[in-house]
């Protein structure tokens, strides 16, 4: 079932938080909304859920306009950053709550009398809960209260509460951000697998780009209340539509160097001419190079040189922070620690001067308005 | 047949509960068709009046209420109390029931009877004879004037009694002032005129001042005074007869004697009556119910009903018949209760101050007298002046 948001606008007081956002999510898709803090991700999600009413625009689910429909009647399930489990109910009761509210009459919901009156139905509900719990491997925790669970277990219980009712879509607002790093990595793959298994639409909000990159079919990069770019993760990583997107996606962040296209249409970076012409008008540029696309090179064959100012060895990767010879540009480059150790005895000590070369195929060119030059090197290379 | 129910409220449950518990069976035997329902008791006379005023607004008045003698006037002024004249007129031999005039006067306003007194108290002296003996006094020569009291104080203090006297100036604010005024045969208010500005007023104030200073009297609150007296620390205590029960119950191991209230230079010529009176405040239009209320009212204030007051409390019944006929042996048996009866001829009205500010006047006087005890006022003439001015200002003619 397709979900579409069109022209969604929302202001709080005088500040416009969303400025006419359009987004269409296909059935079964995993879409991630990513963006810096305060850009309006949560607000957009809450509007979709019906928790907030937009000032303008339409929300459609399966072609039906639900802009004015109550959250309870949209059949969407939401998982919150803080899990929002009812602290006084056991995990089982937590998971049963949405079912009860949907499937039972008011009488049947009564505390003590209800279960006696509708024994059959209760049994059915309990079966449903147990099923979801099995999927999430939390059968053993059903009788515990949220206070007695660890972060990851709470996370799963919250998922369970969302799952039991077979919603049209799952909405998740930074569901992993309260977990510690290792657990976050683990839950990432669990969520992906869950998505594959259930084949339900997931709309996932995060400000952690690693989550967005690894899990989504498509990701939307939001900033200042608008979606800047929407597409599959590798498209966004490899062809960011603007400097802002490029800067936001990728860790460590993309290196941005000043450059220009001269009268002959030739590119130069930091004053150094490059050997090909990106077929654009004469203009100043920002040239983006990801850390993994820079390499140490013997001083002779290097395009740039700089001093090692800091090195971060992550075991598998080594990040060198260089200060280029021009004195005010800093770049980060990634290398394999083993390779580096072999090539430079003891591995580029702090303060040593090293050469640097850039693969021209991997340059991202951004015009003075911050937008990507469509004729950028890499795209050309692809077409070729 | 139909039972008529009337509602009735009275103050001081710990004092009067037992009285009514004894009266009620007698009444029910005599009037089986009337049922008397007791309401929550009033905590005090003030509480009683305030409650009636509130109930008048709410329209939930009882049929008969017992009010402090000096509180009757308010209810009459505000038109809450009903005159008893029509019922008295119906009674063929009302006088024979034993209501004598002095007592009826206590409940008479604008020449119409509104209240029938039920229990009467008078100021008396309580003496700890063991301590008095230290001052060389015995039953036969207890002080009869305030000067003698002060002289006794000195002797007692020499004998090591730190705290020889307690003089109950604080009882309901102005009762003892009225006592000193009536002692000189002077009413405290005449019409809307406060008479404290006259020479008798100054005498009254000076007498108090002499007692407090001469005896170095401590400013005790009643409970504290009672405790001190019971513990045998106070030799002479001047208070209402009504406290006799409480005093006897709490007294320590000493001989207690009550005696007549001393006077100024000579025995008092009059004393204000304390106690309460029954008033008819029923809002009912039903003659049968009013009749029933009257029946109850009359029953408790006369004959056997009234006699129970003396038997069960320190008060005396205001009814001649009860006192003279029924209780003859009783008083010989309990001589301490007889002191008040001996003072009966001195009985005078406990005066109320007219107008809306009546209660505020009492307060002004209370505050003034307290100033004498606490030592705030030493110049009685200026106090007399201040009090007169302030009180007169609050009385209707003054404004």
């Amino acid at each position, binding site marked *: 079932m397709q979900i579409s948001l069109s022209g969604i606008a929302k202001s709080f007081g005088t500040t416009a938080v969303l400025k006419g956002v359009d987004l269409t999510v296909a059935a079964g898709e995993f879409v991630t909304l990513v963006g810096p803090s305060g850009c309006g991700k949560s607000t957009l999600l809450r509007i979709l859920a019906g*928790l*907030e*009413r937009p000032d303008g625009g339409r929300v459609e689910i399966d072609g039906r306009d639900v802009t*004015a429909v*109550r959250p309870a009647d949209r059949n969407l399930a939401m998982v919150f950053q803080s899990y929002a489990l009812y602290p006084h109910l056991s995990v089982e009761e937590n998971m049963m709550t949405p079912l009860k509210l949907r499937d039972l009459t008011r009488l049947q919901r009564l505390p003590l009398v209800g279960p006696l009156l509708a024994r059959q139905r209760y049994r059915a509900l309990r079966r449903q809960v147990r099923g979801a719990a099995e999927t999430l491997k939390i059968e053993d925790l059903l009788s515990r209260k949220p206070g007695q669970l660890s972060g990851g277990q709470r996370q799963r219980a919250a998922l369970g509460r969302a799952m039991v009712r077979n919603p049209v879509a799952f909405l998740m607002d930074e569901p992993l951000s309260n977990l510690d790093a290792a657990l976050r990595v683990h839950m990432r793959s669990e969520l992906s697998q869950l998505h594959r298994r259930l084949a339900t639409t997931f709309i996932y909000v995060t400000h952690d780009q690693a989550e967005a990159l690894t899990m989504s079919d498509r990701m939307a990069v939001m900033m200042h209340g608008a979606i800047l770019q929407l597409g599959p993760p590798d498209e966004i990583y490899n062809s960011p539509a603007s400097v802002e997107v490029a800067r936001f996606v990728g860790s460590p962040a993309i290196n941005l160097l000043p450059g220009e296209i001269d009268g002959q249409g030739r590119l130069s970076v930091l004053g150094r001419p490059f050997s090909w012409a990106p077929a654009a008008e004469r203009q100043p540029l920002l040239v983006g190079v990801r850390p993994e696309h820079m390499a140490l090179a013997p001083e002779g064959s290097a395009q740039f040189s700089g001093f090692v100012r800091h090195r971060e060895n992550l075991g598998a990767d080594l990040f060198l922070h260089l200060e280029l010879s021009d004195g005010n540009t800093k770049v980060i480059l990634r290398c394999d620690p083993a390779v580096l150790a072999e090539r430079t005895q003891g591995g580029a000590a702090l303060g040593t001067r090293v050469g640097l070369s850039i693969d021209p195929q991997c340059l991202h060119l951004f015009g003075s308005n911050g937008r990507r030059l469509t004729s950028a090197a890499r795209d050309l290379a692809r077409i070729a | 047949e139909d039972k008529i129910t009337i509602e009735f409220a009275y103050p001081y449950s710990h004092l009067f509960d037992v009285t009514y518990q004894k009266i009620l069976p007698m009444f029910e035997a005599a009037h089986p068709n009337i049922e008397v329902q007791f309401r929550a008791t009033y905590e*005090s006379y*003030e509480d009683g009046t*305030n409650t009636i*005023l*509130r109930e*008048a*607004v709410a329209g939930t008045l009882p049929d008969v209420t017992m009010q402090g003698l000096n509180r009757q006037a*308010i209810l009459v002024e*505000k038109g*809450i109390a009903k005159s008893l004249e029509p019922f008295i007129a119906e009674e063929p031999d009302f006088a024979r029931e034993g209501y004598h005039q002095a007592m009826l006067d206590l409940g008479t306003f604008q020449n119409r009877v509104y209240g029938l007194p039920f229990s009467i108290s008078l100021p008396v002296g309580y003496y700890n004879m063991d301590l008095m003996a230290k001052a060389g006094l015995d039953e036969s020569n207890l002080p009869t004037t305030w000067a003698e009291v002060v002289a006794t104080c000195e002797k007692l203090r020499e004998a090591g009694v*730190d*705290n020889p006297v307690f003089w109950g100036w*604080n009882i*309901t*604010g102005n009762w003892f002032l009225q006592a000193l005024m009536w002692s000189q045969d002077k009413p405290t208010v005449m019409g809307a005129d406060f008479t404290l500005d006259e020479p008798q007023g100054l005498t009254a104030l000076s007498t108090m001042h002499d007692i407090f200073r001469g005896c170095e009297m*401590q*400013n*005790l*609150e009643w*409970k*504290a005074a009672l*405790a*001190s007296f019971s*513990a045998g*620390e106070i030799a002479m205590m001047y208070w209402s007869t009504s406290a006799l029960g409480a005093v006897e119950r709490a007294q320590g191991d000493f001989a207690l004697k009550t005696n007549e209230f001393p006077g100024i230079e000579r025995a008092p010529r009059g004393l204000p009556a304390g106690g309460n009176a029954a008033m008819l405040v029923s809002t009912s239009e039903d003659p049968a119910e009013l009749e029933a209320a009257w029946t109850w009212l009359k029953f408790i204030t006369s004959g056997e009903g009234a006699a129970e007051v003396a038997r069960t409390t320190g008060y005396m019944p205001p009814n001649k018949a009860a006192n003279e006929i029924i209780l003859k042996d009783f008083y010989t048996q309990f001589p301490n209760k007889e002191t008040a009866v001996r003072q009966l001829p001195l009985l005078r009205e406990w005066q109320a101050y007219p107008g*809306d*500010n009546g*209660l*505020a006047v009492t*307060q002004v006087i*209370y*505050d003034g007298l*307290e*100033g004498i*005890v*606490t030592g*705030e006022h030493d110049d009685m003439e200026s106090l007399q002046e201040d009090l007169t001015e302030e009180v007169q200002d609050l009385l209707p003619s003054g404004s």
Partner: protein
Amino acid sequence: MPNSRAHLWFVGPALLLMVLILLLPIGIAFGLSLTDYSLGNTGARFVGLENYERIFTRSTYEKMFGATFRYVFVVVPLTVGLGLGAALLIHSLARFGDLYKTIYFLPVMAALIAMAIVWEFALHPTVGIVNATLERGCGTVLETWNWYAEGCARTFPLWLTDRDYAIWTVSFIGVWQGFGFNMVLYLAGLTSIPRTLYDAAEMDGSRSAWARFRLVTWPMLGPTTVFVVTISLIRSFQVFDTVEAFYPQGGGPSKSVYVMMFAIYEKAIQHNLMGIGAAITVVFLGFVMFLTLVQRWLVERRTHYG
């Protein structure tokens, strides 16, 4: 649900009751304060500001303000201070904290009307347990203290009926009754101070408990203190039960304990002069509101929240 009207149903009843039960009577009181209404009378005369004039000119009312402020200025600092002190002590205990907590909270729970009578006995000039205990000290070194020697010579003070002592005694009882309440509030405040702040203070070189108190505890208790002081102020301005129990008539020796709330009660209920009673009420409300605002303004700026 921003679009629902739910809040009307939620706020409505409370608002309605607030208006009917609290604001309407205050309105009526304000109206009455301009008249000479007296319960049981059929009508009332409009007297303008006469009632207010009286309040600010009569010496009795001077005493009223005196007593009220004396009470407030004794009771508020002491209940707050003792509440804090007790809370700090109890909080730092390894054990028996619950026991002390309960004991100190007892006075808050006891019916004041009964406790007032008990106090009257305890403070009785001669047979009361307080003076009886003091008397035991006679003949010892304590007698070198002039005040004590005088007490031994005759009696120790008539705590409740001496006009020099009465207001302080009543204040003491107010403190006795109220500090447990503040203690509980402070205990709650103390439990929520993060322990790491004490660690940080320790690392920063605060050697004494006092330094840590100054640096961490007291500032962190700021919001609690604002609340406690506000509540204590309101409560002590509203003191009535003790005064009425001790001095059903007159408001203490020489009106030295004639606090505002008692004045309202005396005038409006005892003396049946609703006009003046209502006028005092209005003045009272004005005072408390003013003080609360001042206190908020003074303290709020220096208080750290969250």
